[in-house]
């Protein structure tokens, strides 16, 4: 993932593009990420959604922070998981907190569900990308509303889609193949956790930025989001 990011730095700066992307004001737009989180993995299971991510915040190749919460609940119905620049994730959480607050202030029995939050984030990410000042994240957004399960992802360039299982970063290469083989509609909660644990173990083996402390959130049909913190030892 880091290799991919470094590759993007070779932007050709002709005078024409300079004025378009404000190179003299480069300090005011994101050029590279600094403190980053690695993969997030999410699946739908029988009763709702499961999200897993480790709790690491890397500073380049240093595994600097080891208790970073990269999964958070959003409003009554949704969960968000982020990989990429942690400070941009914190900014996104501020946007979402404002959004949910405004939604609650209507006080009218309507509430924003995961689909709405996902779409809102897509608009935000895509608009920032168009201004050449991206929020350097890949996000997983899942939740349950009125019995309907929803799981989607959106990344820093605004690419977004929904699926039964999604992942970011290395999770795309290491976790998704496992999920494609072993995921099915009627996973119980326990089966889901075991499946995610399998993915996270592979990621711990093979991803240099992974740490051995996990966070898992789940969202149930008809119930507020709850979360459990898991601690897995090195193998």
């Amino acid at each position, binding site marked *: 993932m880091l290799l991919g990011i470094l590759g993007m730095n070779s932007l050709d700066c002709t005078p024409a593009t300079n004025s378009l992307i404000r190179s003299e004001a480069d300090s005011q737009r994101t050029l590279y990420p600094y403190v980053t989180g690695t993969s997030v993995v999410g699946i739908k299971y029988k009763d709702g959604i499961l999200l897993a991510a480790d709790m690491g915040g890397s500073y380049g190749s240093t595994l600097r922070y080891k208790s970073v919460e990269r999964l958070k609940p959003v409003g009554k119905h949704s969960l968000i998981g982020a990989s990429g620049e942690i400070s941009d994730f914190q900014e996104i959480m501020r946007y979402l907190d404002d959004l949910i607050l405004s939604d609650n202030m*209507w006080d*009218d*029995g*309507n509430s*924003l*569900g995961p*689909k*709405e939050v996902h*779409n*809102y984030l897509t*608009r935000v990410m895509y608009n920032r990308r168009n201004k050449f000042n991206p929020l350097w994240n890949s996000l997983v957004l899942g939740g349950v509303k*009125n019995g309907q399960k929803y799981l989607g992802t959106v990344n820093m360039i605004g690419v977004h889609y929904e699926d039964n299982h999604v992942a970011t970063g290395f999770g795309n290469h290491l976790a998704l193949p496992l999920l494609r083989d072993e995921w099915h509609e009627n996973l119980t909660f326990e089966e889901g956790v075991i499946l995610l644990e399998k993915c996270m173990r592979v990621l711990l083996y093979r991803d240099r930025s992974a740490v051995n402390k996990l966070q898992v959130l789940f969202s149930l049909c008809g119930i507020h989001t709850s979360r459990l913190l898991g601690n897995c030892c090195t193998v």
Partner: protein
Amino acid sequence: MFRNQYDTDVTTWSPAGRLFQVEYAMEAVKQGSAAIGLRSKSHVVLACVNKANSELSSHQKKIFKVDDHVGVAIAGLTADGRVLSRYMRNECINYFYTYESQLPVGRLVVQLADKAQVCTQRSWKRPYGVGLLVGGLDESGAHLYYNCPSGNYFEYQAFAIGSRSQAAKTYLERKFVSFMASSRENLIKDALFALRETLQGEKLTSSACTIAVVGVGEAFHILDQETVQALINEFEIAGEEAAAPDQAGVDEPSAADDQAAPVDQSAAPMDM
């Protein structure tokens, strides 16, 4: 209502605590031709009288589709109504673009009401001279709201606005208890009957009225003329027989039906 020294500006209170300009705006709604709305648990029906100025001209458009799940019927200054409909359509589209889900009707009417309130508190503006019956669907079911030029809004089971709306309201007051559980067809039937009440004995024809429906699984749409005429024919036959037992059981004089002389439409050209 008579002229007085406190009624020139919308930003001038009267000593009795009234804003006369706002009340005059509400008068404009009463001059428009009737619009009626009713709702059940799953459907909303909007109906209105559509008299053309002359035989040569087309009918004034009084019902606007705002989105698949919301529509509005207006009474009063149609130009103001058109502008507000455009605002509502914009809000719905923008919400869908951001959230990919439909703007809840309850929020749309609050935004509309707040927009109307602004015009009651600026010296360089005037209140909108149009009343809107907003019918729509959201997660919690079917809703009917009335938006006033004053910036107030209310939710209704059934309501009528415009000229001779009192006759329709009286009819609706008799029947509204049954509306929540009503079928779609019965709801439309009741709308047609209520509409007929406002015509004071004139014959109800599909060329003089417009009916629109929105419901669960049914996008907002205006019924075409043949459908409406067929419904009228169906109900008129039943209607004459039903009217007699109805009147017998109630002390309210449906004298409107007995009057022979139809009232003249001496409305100002801008009002419909």
